[in-house]
C-alpha cells in the first residue's frame, strides 16, 4: 500500500517535471538553437542551406509567379505580347513608351501616384517628372527608340523579311492585336492574379508593387489600406528590397501620413545606397528604374520634410543627402528651387 502511494507520488513528480521541461526548457533551447543556427548560417556562403530540392521547388514557384506576371502584362497591353511593325510601327513605338511608363519606378508610374502640394513652388509630382537628370532622360528616350528599331519580332518586319509576298500576307492576316479586347488595359481585374503570383513566389517584388499600385488606384482611397498591407507583406518577405519601401512611402504619403512616409523613404534610400553603383552608373543590376526610384526616395524625403516641417529643414536634409550622393543632380535642382523660394 505504502509502496503504491510512493510509486504514485513519484510518478506525479516525474510528470510535473516533464511538463515543466516541456513547457519551459524546450522553447528556451529551441530559441537558443535558432539563434546559433542563424549565426552559423550567416557565416556561410549565400548558397548554403539551399538544398537541390529547395532550389528546384523555388525555381518552380518563381516560374509560376513570373508566368502570371507575364500574363498580366499581356493583358494590360491589350492582349498583344509582341509589338507590331511595318504599318503598325507607330503603334509599336507608342506601345514601347507605354510599357516604359508602366515600368518606370518598378512597374509603377510614380507620376500617377503623386499628390500635388499646392502651397509649394516645387511639387512632389514635379519631383517625379523632373526627377531624372536630363541627360539620363534623353538617353532613356534614345534607348527606347533604338529598342523598337532593333526589336526582334515574332513576325519579321517588311524590310527584314526575305519571304516577299508570303511575309506581306502574314503581316496582313496575322492579327497584331485583338480588337475585341482593346478596351482592356485596366489592371483592377488583375489584382487577384498579383495575389496568386505573390503567394506562389513571395519574392516576386514586381507583383507586390504593381498589385499594390492597382489596389491603391482601384476605388479611390478605399483600398489604399489594402495596398499598404499588401506592400507590408512584400517587405516582410523581402526585407532588403528598397523599391518596396519606396512604394510603401508613396502609399503612406497618399494617406497623409507624412512622417511615416519620410521614414519609409529614408529606409528605402539607405537600402538603395548600399547597392547603388558609384555615381549611379546604369548597368544590368542598376537600371533607370532603380535609379528613378532612388531619386524619388531622395526627392520625396526633402519635399515632405518641407511640407511637414520648414523649408530650411528640407534644405538642410537635402544638402545632407546631396553630400551622400554628390552625383544626384536632380536633387541639387530641387535644392536650388527651394533656396530661391525661401528667400
Amino acid at each position: 500500500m505504502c509502496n503504491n502511494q510512493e510509486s504514485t507520488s513519484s510518478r506525479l513528480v516525474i510528470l510535473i517535471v516533464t511538463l515543466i521541461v516541456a513547457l519551459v526548457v524546450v522553447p528556451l533551447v529551441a530559441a537558443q538553437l535558432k539563434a546559433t543556427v542563424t549565426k552559423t548560417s550567416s557565416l556561410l556562403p549565400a548558397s548554403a542551406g539551399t538544398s537541390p530540392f529547395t532550389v528546384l521547388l523555388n525555381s518552380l514557384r518563381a516560374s509560376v509567379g513570373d508566368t502570371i506576371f507575364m500574363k498580366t502584362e499581356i493583358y494590360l497591353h491589350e492582349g498583344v505580347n509582341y509589338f507590331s511593325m511595318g504599318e503598325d510601327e507607330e503603334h509599336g513605338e507608342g506601345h514601347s513608351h507605354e510599357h516604359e511608363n508602366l515600368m518606370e519606378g518598378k512597374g509603377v508610374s510614380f507620376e500617377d501616384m503623386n499628390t500635388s502640394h499646392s502651397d509649394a513652388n516645387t511639387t512632389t509630382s514635379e519631383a517625379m517628372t523632373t526627377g531624372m537628370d536630363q541627360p539620363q532622360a534623353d538617353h532613356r528616350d534614345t534607348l527606347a527608340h533604338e529598342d523598337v528599331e532593333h526589336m526582334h519580332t515574332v513576325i519579321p518586319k517588311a524590310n527584314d523579311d526575305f519571304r516577299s509576298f508570303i511575309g506581306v500576307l502574314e503581316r496582313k492576316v496575322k492579327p497584331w492585336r485583338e480588337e475585341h479586347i482593346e478596351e482592356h488595359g485596366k489592371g483592377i481585374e488583375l489584382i487577384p492574379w498579383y495575389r496568386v503570383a505573390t503567394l506562389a513566389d513571395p519574392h516576386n517584388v514586381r507583383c507586390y508593387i504593381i498589385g499594390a499600385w492597382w489596389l491603391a488606384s482601384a476605388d479611390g482611397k478605399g483600398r489604399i489600406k489594402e495596398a499598404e498591407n499588401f506592400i507590408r507583406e512584400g517587405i516582410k518577405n523581402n526585407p532588403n528590397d528598397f523599391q518596396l519601401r519606396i512604394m510603401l512611402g508613396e502609399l503612406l504619403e497618399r494617406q497623409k501620413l507624412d512622417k511615416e512616409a519620410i521614414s519609409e523613404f529614408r529606409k528605402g534610400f539607405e537600402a538603395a545606397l548600399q547597392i547603388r553603383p558609384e555615381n549611379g552608373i546604369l548597368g544590368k543590376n542598376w537600371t533607370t528604374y532603380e535609379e528613378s526610384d532612388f531619386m524619388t526616395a531622395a526627392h520625396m524625403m526633402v519635399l515632405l520634410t518641407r511640407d511637414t516641417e520648414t523649408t530650411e529643414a528640407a534644405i538642410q536634409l537635402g544638402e545632407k543627402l546631396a553630400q551622400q550622393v554628390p552625383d544626384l543632380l536632380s536633387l541639387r535642382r530641387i535644392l536650388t528651387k527651394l533656396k530661391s523660394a525661401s528667400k
Partner: protein
Amino acid sequence: MSGSQDTARYYPAIILAKAVIKQSIRQKEFQLILILMILLLGTGLIAPAILKNEGAQTHFFFVNFGLSFAFFCAQFLTLLAAARQYPQEFEQRTILPLMSKPISRNEYILGKWLGTTLLGIIAILLLVPLWLISNTITLHIDNDIAMFFQMIALQCLAIASISALAILGSLFMPFALNLGVVAILVFKGQAIGQFISNFFDGKLPSDATQWISNYFPVFRYFDLSNLYSMGEPPIGLSDCLLRLLYGLLWIAIPMAFAMFGFKRKAL
C-alpha cells in the same frame, strides 16, 4: 550464453527491441529499403557518368540528393514502424500474452522505442554509405569525415525523436491519424511554428508568438546534409551540444508522456 541470459533477465526491453527489428525485417518496409538501396546504388553510379559534369554544383547536388533521400526514407520507415507497434498488437490482442510475461509497461514502451529507433539507424547505415560509396567512385568525394559522423549522429537522434513521438501518438490516436499528425510535425513542424507565429503576429507580443512557435519540433536542426555536401567543416562543439540537447529533450519528453499514458491505459 550466460551473458545472453543475463541480458534477457535484466533488460526485457532489449529482447522486445530485437523482436521489433525481426518483425519489421519480415515486413514489406524492409523489402522497400532493399529496393531503395539498389535504386540508390544504380543512380549513384550511372547518373553522374551520364551527366558528365564534375562541377561543384553537380557534386553538391548528387551528394545532397542521396543523403536527403536516405534520411527521408529512414525517417519515414521509423515513423511507419513506430506508429503501427501498439495499434497492431492491441488489435490482434497479442499485447495480452506479451504483458503477461515479466515485463513492465515502461519496459514495453522502451523496448518498442528502442526497436524502431534501431530499425531507422540500420536503414541510415545501409543507405548512406552505399550512396556515398557509389558517389565516391564517380565523383571522388573527399568531404570532411568528422562532419560526416556529426551528420549521422544527429540523424540518429532525429530517428530516435521520431520514434518517441510516433509511439506517444500511437497510444492516443488510430494508426492513420497518428501517422499523419507525426509526419506533419516531423516534416512540417517548422512551417507550423512559423504559421502560428505569423497568425498571432500583431495580436500577441512578438516574444510570445516566438515562444509558442518554439513548441513545434524543428527537425532541420538535425540535418547537416547541406553543410556536409558543401564540404563545410564540422559544426562547433557548443552548437553540436545544443542540437544534442534539443534532440534528447524531444526524445525524453514524448517518452515520459508515453510511459505515463501507457501506465494508465486499460488493455
